[in-house]
């Protein structure tokens, strides 16, 4: 069963009662919720994810609850709280911003707990089992490029985290939604009619945010790990001529390591994992302004690169 198989009424009942469990790659999540408009979001954006049905035999990785105020604030600018294991870890958002609260809270949870992975702040997409990592600071165009590539047939592993398994050197998918911000929302709507976007949430800390539903194929294949083959650091700038240039490996190492949440925490395992990515991948800086051309350029580059393909 997938989440979309549940009626809105049934989903609401489960979220208000025992909670809903579903799988997201290597993680399972257990969510309780009492925010009314959140159910529509969950059904639309996470509709393709597999429900873990009772009896629950495995431990959930994340026990999350979205709650609202129990005092007078229920009536005056009500808020939504993100609880992980019953504790409020984050400052509340306005109640009608439950979806971005949930997404950022879950990101926070993964970043703080999944230390069996080297967690890189990258979007990750794949063709077959060859993965492209897209590191980038906020505003670099990472999510926009990721969404565009996915809408052209690439498999989405994650918009937020490259979960790099230190021993195998492979990336684990989570197939969670892509968080688009500000102008990117309209750009992606115009880029493809296949994009399924949730509602816009205005005036968040990052401006207006909307979430793109992961393609069903990406969800179905979210147990399929991928090997880092390319690292492309995007830099969107209006009017910029397109330049795709390789980065020297020694500098690429610092680029990859600096984008990790837990590089220091993992110690030598983190060092070895980054070294492996850098040695086995081709690493680029990518400056662009035209999204269509950018996607085409990366398609051509990857199609011409036979590295990692079976002979």
């Amino acid at each position, binding site marked *: 069963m997938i989440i979309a198989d549940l009626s809105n009424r049934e989903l609401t009942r489960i979220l208000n009662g025992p909670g809903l469990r579903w799988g997201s790659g290597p993680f399972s999540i257990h969510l309780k919720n009492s925010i009314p408009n959140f159910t529509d979001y969950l059904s639309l954006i996470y509709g393709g994810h597999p429900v873990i049905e009772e009896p629950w035999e495995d431990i959930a990785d994340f026990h999350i609850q979205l709650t609202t105020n129990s005092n007078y604030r229920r009536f005056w600018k009500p808020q939504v709280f993100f609880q992980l294991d019953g504790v409020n870890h984050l400052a509340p958002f306005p109640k009608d911003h439950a979806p971005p609260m949930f997404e950022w809270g879950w990101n926070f949870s993964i970043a703080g707990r999944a230390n069996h992975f080297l967690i890189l702040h990258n979007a990750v997409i794949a063709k077959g089992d060859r993965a492209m990592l897209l590191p980038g600071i906020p505003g670099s165009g990472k999510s926009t490029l990721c969404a565009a590539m996915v809408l052209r047939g690439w498999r989405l592993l994650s918009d937020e985290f490259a979960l790099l398994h230190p021993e195998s050197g492979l990336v684990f998918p989570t197939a969670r939604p892509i968080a688009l911000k500000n102008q990117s929302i309209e750009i992606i709507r115009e880029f493809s009619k296949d994009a399924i976007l949730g509602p816009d949430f205005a005036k968040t800390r990052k401006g207006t945010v909307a979430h793109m539903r992961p393609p069903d194929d990406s969800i179905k294949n979210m147990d399929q790990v991928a090997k880092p083959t390319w690292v492309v650091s995007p830099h969107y700038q209006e009017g910029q001529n397109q330049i795709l240039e390789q980065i*020297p490996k020694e500098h690429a190492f610092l680029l990859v390591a600096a984008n990790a949440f837990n590089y220091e925490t993992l110690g*030598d395992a983190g060092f070895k994992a980054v070294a492996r990515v850098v040695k086995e991948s081709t690493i680029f800086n990518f400056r662009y302004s035209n999204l269509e051309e950018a996607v085409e350029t990366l398609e051509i580059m990857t199609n011409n690169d036979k590295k990692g393909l079976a002979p």
Partner: protein
Amino acid sequence: MNISQETQWIVPQRCSLLWEQFENGCLIFNPLSGTTHLLFDPALEILKLLEQKPMTAQTVIQSLDLALESKAQNSEVLANIWKIIIDLDRLGIIQPLFLETTKNKQTPTS
């Protein structure tokens, strides 16, 4: 003891540095501090020498086998090597040999 030009330097015995050599530089991971450093020559060559055995700045120069033609040249190079050694010390990658010896002597009674 104070640091001087006679001080011998060494990579601490309990510090097993991890090395990843790339075309134009080398990444070093120091497990004692958990830090990573990108080193180029000549710092890289100096570190490789000090990982093998303790050396003073002057013996480092001799080991580098530089074609120095005058005392003035030697003084200039010595000053530069000394600066690199002090930088490596500040990064916690090397230390004076007397600290290593003191540590070893203290270990049985501590």
